[in-house]
C-alpha cells in the first residue's frame, strides 16, 4: 500500500524538525560528515517523502513507486534520517553512520543493502543522467511513476549535468523533476565567487526546461512547485529551491565552513536544544 502523504503544514514542520534532529545526532556520533547541506535540505526531503513521492517503506522495491535519486551523495545523512523517519528502518541505526560495516555509508552505497536507497552516488554530476535513464525507461514502458532528482547548486558546475539537462528536454521527459538545493554556497565559499551559476533559471529555460523557483524552507512555497511540475506535459521541470545552509541552527546558518563538518558532541547537545525550541519552518 502506498504511504499516506500529507499536506498538513504543522505535521510537516514536526517531521522536518525530527529529521534535523536525527541528522545532528547521527553526525555527532559519526564525528565527520556534511551538516550544512543536510540541515539546509531537510525541508525539501520532508516535502518529497511526506507530501510528494509515492512510496511504500514496507515494500521498498514496490514497482509503482516514484524514484528519488540523490545526486549529491554527501548529504546522505538527511536522506538516511528521512528514510528512517518514514519507517524504512529503525532510527537507532542512524547512529551507525559512517562506521565500519554500516548500511549507512558516508556516501550512499547500494552494496550495503539499505532499504529505500535507489542509487550509490557521491561523484558529482552523475545523478541527473541516471534519472534521465529511469525517466526514459518509464516512458518506454508507459508507466506513470515519476522521477525526482536532487542536485546541489555547486554540482551544476559539472558539465555532465548539462549534457543530461539537454537530453531530458530533447526526450520531453515531463515525468522528471529536478530539485536544486540553491544555498549559493560550496566548500570554497559563494558559488558566485567560485564559479558563477547565475542567471540560473534562464540557463535551465534555455535548455528547454520548465524552471520554477521557490523558498526551500516554506512548505507553502515548495508544494505548489511540485504540483506545477507534475502538471507539465511537455518539458522536464526544475525547482530551484532557495535554501540556507545549516538551516535551523542560527549560529551556523549560511556559514560555508559547515559544509563538510560534523558537530562535536557538546555542540550537538546545544543544536538539539535549539531545534527543540522552535519549528521555524512554518513560521515564514
Amino acid at each position, binding site marked *: 500500500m502506498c504511504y499516506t502523504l500529507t499536506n498538513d503544514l504543522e505535521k510537516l514542520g514536526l517531521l522536518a524538525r525530527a529529521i534535523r534532529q536525527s541528522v545532528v545526532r547521527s553526525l555527532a556520533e559519526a564525528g565527520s560528515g556534511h551538516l550544512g547541506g543536510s540541515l539546509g535540505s531537510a525541508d525539501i526531503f520532508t516535502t518529497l517523502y511526506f507530501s510528494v513521492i509515492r512510496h511504500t517503506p514496507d515494500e521498498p522495491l514496490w514497482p509503482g513507486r516514484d524514484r528519488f535519486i540523490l545526486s549529491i551523495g554527501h548529504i546522505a545523512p538527511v536522506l538516511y534520517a528521512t528514510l528512517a523517519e518514514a519507517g524504512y528502518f529503525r532510527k537507532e541505526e542512524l547512529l551507525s553512520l559512517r562506521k565500519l560495516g554500516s548500511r549507512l555509508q558516508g556516501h550512499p552505497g547500494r552494496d550495503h543493502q539499505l532499504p529505500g536507497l535507489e542509487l*550509490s552516488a*557521491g561523484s558529482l554530476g552523475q545523478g*541527473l*543522467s*541516471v534519472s*534521465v535513464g529511469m525517466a526514459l*525507461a518509464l516512458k518506454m514502458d508507459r508507466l506513470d511513476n515519476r522521477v525526482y532528482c536532487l542536485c546541489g547548486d555547486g554540482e551544476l558546475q559539472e*558539465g*555532465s549535468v548539462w549534457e543530461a539537462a539537454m537530453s531530458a528536454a530533447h526526450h520531453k521527459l515531463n515525468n522528471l523533476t529536478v530539485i536544486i538545493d540553491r544555498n549559493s554556497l560550496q566548500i570554497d565559499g559563494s558559488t558566485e565567487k567560485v564559479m558563477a551559476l547565475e542567471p540560473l533559471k534562464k540557463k535551465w529555460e534555455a535548455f528547454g526546461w520548465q524552471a520554477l523557483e521557490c523558498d526551500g524552507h516554506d512548505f507553502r512555497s515548495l508544494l505548489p512547485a511540485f504540483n506545477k511540475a507534475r502538471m507539465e506535459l511537455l518539458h522536464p521541470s526544475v525547482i530551484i529551491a532557495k535554501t540556507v545552509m545549516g538551516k535551523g541552527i542560527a549560529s551556523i546558518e549560511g556559514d560555508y565552513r559547515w559544509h563538510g563538518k560534523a558537530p562535536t558532541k557538546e555542540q550537538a547537545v546545544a543544536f538539539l536544544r535549539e531545534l527543540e525550541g522552535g519549528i521555524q519552518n512554518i513560521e515564514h
Partner: protein
Amino acid sequence: MLTHFINRGNKSTKLGFGEGLLEAAILNERVVAIGADITASVGVDLFASRFPERFISLGIAEQNCVGVAAGLALSGKIPVFATYGVFSALRTTDQIRVSLCYNRLHAVIGGAHAGVSVGPDGATHQALEDIAVMRVMPNMTVLSPCDATQARLATMAAIQQCRGPVYIRFGREAMPDFTSVEMGFQIGLAQLVHEGSDIAIIATGHMIWEALQAAYELEKEGIHARVLNIHTIKPLDETAVVIAAKECGVLVTAEEHQVAGGLGSAVSEVISKQYPVPIEFIGMNDRFGESGTPHELMQKFGLTSGDIIKGCRKALGKKK
C-alpha cells in the same frame, strides 16, 4: 594442432558486435541501445533501424550516455552503449566506476576503434588504454573477441549471460574472420586455438590471427607453439594461463593495446604469483599510435606475426 584456421573473408569485429546486438535484441525485448552520434560507425545502426522505439539518441555526450545506461539498467532494461573506446571507456571512466560498477548494473559498454588498426584517424581515436582502465574496475567484465564471428557471440553473451557491467572492445578494420559458431563462447574460459608445449602465445583480439600465423610458421621449424585466445580479459582464465606456464615453460603475450595494464600485465600478475616463467610482451610500449594504413601501423609498432615469432625466439632463449 586442433584446427588449421582459414580466413573466410575479412570482416570487422564492429560488424560482429552490431549483429550480436541485433540478435540479442530480437530475443529479448528488454535490450535497448544508446547512440552517441556515430551509430553506423560502431555497428549500432542495424539495431536502430530495426528497433527505432528502443534506440535512444543522446548525441555527443558520452558521460551522460553512461549515466543514462545506469538509469535504464535500474529500471529493468539491458542498455547497450557503444562508441569509440577512447570515449566510451576513457572519457566516461568516472561514470563507469560509480554509476555502473559501484551500483553493479548490467549494462554493456562497447568500445570501437580498438588498437592502432584503426589506421589513418591517428592517435586520438586509437583506443590503446581501454583494457587497462576497464579491468581495474571492480565488478566489471572485459571482453576482447578475436574476429567478427566471435564478436557476435561475445556480444550476445554479454547481453544474455552477464549480471553486471561489461566492456567489450572491437576494431574498425575488416580483419580475417576465422572462428566458428561451433567453437562456442563462454565468458571467462580461454580458448585453445593451437596446440603445442614448446612455448605459449597468449593473445587477444586481432592478435589471435597474427599469433596463429606465427604458430603455423614456427611449426615448420618444429617449434610447437600453443596459442590461447584470451577473449575474456576479466575474469581472466587463470587456470589456462598457469597450465600454459607449467606445460610450456615460457610465454609470449600479444595484444593491440599498451602492455602496461593490458593483457601482458594481467598474465604477469597471475604467473608471477602462481608459476613464474620467462615472458615476452608484444604490444604497445608506452606510446601513442599515429596515422597510416592499418597494415603499416601494425608493422611499425611491432604487432605482426613476424614480431610474435621474434618474441617467441627471444623467449625461447630464456627458457630454462
